[in-house]
């Protein structure tokens, strides 16, 4: 109860300050509004977190009209407290969960209290819970999943009872929740998976169980931990697609078929000439998932990258530079009457509408894919050379077939070199505005990368016909949106000039994140862990390894240990091992990630690390009788606990302005409230 009370009061205190948009609230708040307005958008994270934020906003009377344009915008009269409060409440559960998990793992109240105290008084955990962010929601589900898993483990001797089923199913639900908020949820799924495999392995070795029993166990777990989360996860997406049925900023990332679902998109109940004709203005979309439109602009390839001609790229957003005009080989479009249709095998010349350059290719290396040829824009006002000619081919078509808009897959074969127009999916460097490379591939295999479709089609001379494009089924949409998300995630590469946070910075609390305010006059919030808490965590990791090494060598050598000592080492190896695994799983993968990383990615790992600290320190204090005789060892234990508590409380008192906001001069100036607390030069408050 005490833990719960403290936890809620620290998180909810000064919740509505500062009354302006802080940091990533600009994204997630905006996305919450999109749900309320039912506008389609694209984000690299799965939708559950933003849906919950939207729901919380809706319930608390927020009407979705605030634009969330940039950090620092004032909320004025908007009801933003509901969304913040929702996140803070979820964040308040974390210490409670930590308490229960450690209690379950170690059977020691002290250990549980240490773990909970560490989390309650950590400024970082408080700060990250107080704003409209995905992290408190994510961490809530992660901790809930771990808690139910631990509870489930305790039920092992009461198989198939109601409580056994309850915790098992609850684990599954929380897993789905964690994955539904961010893909980081995968790590906790791996943790639960490994734990389950270990559990099944134990059952397999239990000779009193028949194979049928084991199969039952296996099926029950497969249902609750694989099938159930999968169903829930898919349901989340189903809700996502049903709710967001209006066209919005995320359209261009998706295929033409996908876009036709969205109300307000120009492909929704589209009406355009059915067959492609000469003289039409078109946009051409690559068929690869998240492929982009064929695009060109007034910029040349830089020196040293093939010929210095105009760039041709693929671009994901809708833009007037995506428009191309289809011409015949010889320019004689001025004929009156009905224009001729383009048919399979016809030679065409594609002229970029804005710059009047022709789509061109030649025997130069492409900028990134060296095995392919470069594609450029060449010529002026439509006059170019023989390298501007492309043969249009309908996949699966025969000579003379017309090209259907939207529905035909077409390929463009270059006449002179015989290569095929291709989108490699690689992102060009800065000179290409980080758009996607377009090449001409000499390998003629039919892949989606070399297939295109005609999306928009404008020709005033032809009658518009209402087109009902084949609506994609739900599974196709699901797959497509996932691929788009993964592409988006790996596309978040660090920029050259930006300060980039490295994974090794995190456990040492090297550098925080500015949530709001830079200058002395502004209201500043800085996301940084309570250094005392974090450094205790760091030290405990080392301590844990030493203790486990000592304990296991002693066991392996067969030293006789007392009953109590054996219990301690079991807790260390089993319970501690589980937490250590959790920490590793939530931390180590970041070292291999190429995408841009931020400090707050460490917080799930930090939860595990704090719980491990509670467990380790408790056993350390209890093992004091190894060195000291009984009365002294008891005193040592008490003093240690009190000292720990005091140092955490005092450091929290020192650093609390980080999360509850500070004004006035910066910390390196003497008049500041934080003067003398800038223990590391890299902290920026």
């Amino acid at each position, binding site marked *: 109860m005490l833990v719960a009370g403290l936890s809620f009061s620290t998180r909810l205190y000064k919740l509505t300050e500062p009354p302006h948009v802080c940091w990533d609230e600009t994204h997630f708040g905006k996305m919450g509004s999109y749900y309320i307005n039912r506008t389609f958008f694209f984000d690299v994270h799965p939708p559950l977190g933003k849906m919950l934020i939207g729901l919380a906003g809706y319930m608390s009377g927020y009407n979705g009209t605030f634009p969330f344009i940039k950090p620092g915008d004032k909320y004025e009269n908007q009801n933003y407290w509901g969304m913040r409060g929702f996140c803070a409440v979820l964040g308040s559960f974390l210490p409670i969960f930590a308490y229960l998990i450690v209690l379950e793992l170690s059977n020691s109240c002290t250990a549980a209290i240490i773990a909970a105290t560490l989390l309650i008084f950590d400024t970082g955990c408080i700060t990250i819970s107080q704003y409209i962010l995905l992290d408190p929601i994510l961490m809530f589900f992660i901790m809930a999943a771990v808690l139910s898993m631990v509870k489930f483990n305790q039920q092992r001797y009461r198989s198939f009872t109601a409580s056994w089923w309850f915790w098992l199913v609850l684990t599954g639900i929380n897993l789905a929740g964690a994955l539904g908020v961010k893909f980081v949820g995968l790590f906790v799924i791996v943790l639960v998976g490994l734990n389950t495999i270990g559990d099944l*392995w134990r059952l397999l070795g239990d000779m009193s169980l028949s194979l049928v029993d084991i199969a039952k166990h296996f099926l029950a777990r497969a249902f609750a931990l694989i099938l159930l989360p999968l169903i829930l996860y898919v349901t989340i997406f189903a809700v996502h697609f049903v709710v967001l049925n209006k066209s919005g900023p995320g359209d261009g990332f998706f295929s033409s078929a996908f876009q036709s679902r969205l109300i307000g998109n120009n492909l929704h109940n589209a009406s355009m000439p059915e067959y492609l004709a000469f003289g039409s203005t078109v946009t051409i979309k690559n068929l690869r998932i998240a492929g982009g439109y064929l695009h060109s602009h007034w910029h040349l390839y830089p020196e040293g990258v093939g010929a210095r001609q105009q760039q041709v790229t693929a671009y994901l957003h809708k833009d007037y530079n995506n428009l191309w005009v289809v011409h015949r080989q010889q320019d004689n479009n001025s004929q009156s009457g009905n224009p001729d249709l383009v048919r399979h095998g016809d030679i065409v010349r594609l002229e970029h509408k804005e710059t009047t350059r022709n789509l061109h290719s030649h025997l130069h290396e492409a900028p990134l894919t060296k095995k392919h040829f470069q594609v450029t824009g060449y010529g002026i006002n439509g006059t170019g050379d023989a390298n501007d000619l492309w043969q249009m081919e309908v996949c699966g078509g025969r000579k003379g077939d017309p090209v259907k808009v939207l529905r035909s897959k077409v390929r463009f074969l270059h006449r002179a070199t015989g290569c095929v127009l291709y989108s490699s999916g690689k992102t060009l460097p800065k000179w290409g505005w980080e758009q996607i490379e377009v090449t001409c591939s000499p390998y003629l295999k039919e892949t989606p990368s070399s297939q295109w479709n005609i999306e928009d089609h404008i020709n005033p001379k032809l009658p518009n016909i209402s087109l009902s494009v084949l609506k994609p089924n739900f599974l196709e949409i699901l797959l497509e949106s996932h691929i788009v998300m993964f592409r988006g995630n790996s596309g978040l590469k660090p920029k050259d000039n930006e*300060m980039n946070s490295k994974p090794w910075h995190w456990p040492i609390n090297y*550098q925080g994140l500015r949530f709001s305010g830079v200058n002395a006059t502004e209201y500043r919030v800085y996301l940084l862990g309570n250094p005392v808490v974090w450094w205790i965590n760091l030290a405990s990791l080392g301590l844990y390894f030493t203790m486990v090494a000592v304990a296991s060598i002693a066991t392996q*050598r067969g030293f006789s240990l007392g009953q109590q000592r054996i219990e301690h080492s079991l807790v260390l190896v089993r319970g501690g091992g589980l937490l250590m695994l959790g920490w590793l799983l939530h931390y180590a993968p970041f070292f291999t990630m190429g995408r841009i990383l931020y400090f707050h990615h460490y917080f799930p790992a930090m939860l595990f690390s704090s719980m491990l600290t509670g467990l380790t320190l408790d056993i350390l204090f209890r093992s004091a009788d190894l060195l000291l005789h009984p009365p002294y060892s008891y005193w040592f234990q008490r003093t240690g606990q009190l000292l720990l508590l005091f140092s955490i409380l005092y450091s929290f008192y020192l650093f609390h302005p980080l999360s509850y906001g500070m004004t006035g001069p910066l910390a390196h100036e003497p008049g500041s409230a934080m003067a003398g607390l800038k223990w590391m030069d*890299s902290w920026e408050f």
Partner: protein
Amino acid sequence: MSLTCWATDSIHGVEENEGHSWVSEMLQLPLVVTAQVDLLLVLVSLLAFWTRLSHLSYPNAVVFDEVYYGQFVSLYMKRVFFIDDSGPPLGHMILAFGAYLGGFDGNFVWNRIGAEYPTTVNVWSLRLLPALCGALCVPLVYLLTLELKFSHLSALGAAVLLLLENSLIVQSRFMLLESVLIFFVLLAFFSYLRFHNAPSSYSLLSSWSRYIWLILSGVSCGAVVGVKYMGLFSYLLLLVVASLHTWKLIGDKTISHRNVCVQCVHRVLCLVVVPVLLYVFWFYVHLSFLNRSGPHDQLMSSAFQASLQGGLSRITRGQPLEVAYGSQVTLRSSVSQPIPCWLHSHKVNYPIRYDNGRGSSHQQQVTCYPFKDVNNWWIIKDPGRQQLVVDTPPRPVRHGDVIQLVHGMTSRFLNSHDVAAPMSPHTQEVSGYIDFNVSMPAQNLWRVDISNREAESEVWKTILSEVRLVHVNTSAVLKLSGVPLPDWGFRQLEVVADKLFKAHSSSLEWTVEEHRYGTSQEQKEREAELHSPTHIDVDRKISFWAKFVELQWKMLTVKQEESEHKYSSSPLEWITMETNIAYWLHSSTNAQIHLIGNPVSWGVGNLSLLAYQLLAVVYLLRRRRGLKDVPDGVWDQFVCLGCVCVGGWLVNFVPFLLMDKTLFLYHYLPALCYLYLLSPALLEHAHTHLLSSLTHQRALCVGALAVLLSIFLTYRTFCPLTYGSPELSAHQLQGLKWRDTWDILYRRR
């Protein structure tokens, strides 16, 4: 050869079926076998030497990556310092040693693949050492299989697989490093297992010979990591295997505590300390050998460059050490990426308005200029005094002192103020101060902050001290932003003052590179003085450790430009050998060399990898249920095989999946060797323990023989592409294109 195998095999099978009088058979068997072993081993080795070493100097032209390694060999011959981020120096040193034996003088321009070697270059010796290593891999695999406790037949099988692998042959026969790496990896594992399998005894002599194997293993581990960074993963695997064995040893309660401690210490010494020391030793040799300045000097710090002969040390030798008031200095930015540059100013002002409409102070430009220039000279002035000469005795500048910096040629003061910098508007502009009388006062005081100081009042030292210049009025720090200026700034790099509190950023640090005590009072004299070269004195040294750390750090952080190569491939394509690499094409005929593996062996390897994993899962599940299919001894052998072979494959393959660099098919070769080690052993396991009836066993033998035969035939088929002769017609080449994705070259006539 194959006939002999067949004979022994059937004898073996019969014995087992009879099953009686095992002991007496065992007593006789070694006698018979030893004779055979030696013959087989010798035969296999001879064949290996023949396949790897014959016609080594053909083609007499630069083949593929020889063009890359060759330049380093040349630099070794000339003792010129270089940095190569592709791997530690041992590999290059081995290649260079071969060149040295052949009397290569380094006078050859490695500029393109296919360039003919002149007669003065002894091509044979250049390629000898990698080829020797490649050939020795074959007997090593044979011995390693024996140490894994499999029969001579399996050993022979593994050796033959390796012997007839075209890609390994190609990779061994040129001046490349993979075969060296594979050799040391195999040697490390072989000698470790030799140590592990030898009975531990208390007799001094035998325990000594046992520990010699352990030391040899440690030494090869040092070599593995020294040749390529990829070797690190094999080394870690070996450590894992060793620590598992040690863990068992710790659990052995029949041994005394003291003995356990001693054994553990021995292992740690040989397998951890020795490799680490050796690794450092390679760098020691590298650095002490390459003592002349060369093309990569500028990537290193000034102190490092000063330790090389020629180059910077020729200029800086004899400079005064302590920077004093009145010193004339050039200030080099500690950022050497992508190029080094020096603080610079010239008689051109910032444009009044930039292209985007923002205004500037219109004062004199201060930039960072990547070339030596007389405009790089600055004079250090005491703010309290007027003169620009050094007193006698000189008054040194210390940490914390406030100075002014005067540009030597234009006499403008280095200045900063609250005006946005041209390219990085969030920072302050830095200028040479011109008083336009527009109420913009001079703010030209800078505090010297020596960041690598040891004492609080340390003197500012030439080359050694890394200094931050803190602007006194605004407490901003002089910083190289690195952004090139537009045409009005002659594309030089922008210098700004930034309010940064971050602990480490080399863009904030500056070092004095050229330095002399100014003597001339008048501007005209001073200009003449600045144009004259600096004077001469003694040279300075930095310790080996400082150089080692700097070089190692640079090697790990230097980023080469990522570019896709025509023959690069992704790791998943390696398993099925989707791509090949054309190594060389004769300048006029169709003769060509390709890195193409033996497709049949490749398939056998993949199959056995899959089979092992399936079998292991089945065994594990059944053992857990108390069903022991094989006796414990055999199980241990099976596990050990998996640890070494499957583990070896994993550690040599999986890291590539996570790597973000250009990869080639030859990166897969070390992993492939583990598969070849696995295949015959697994076959033997199946033969002895899975198949019960004699007919099945016979069938398996026949199948194995058939596979061996087809391996030999494919080897023969691809020989022309492996050795580059004889020349094939276009039609024949077409026939060799077994996969559509292979890129075989046809010359149009």
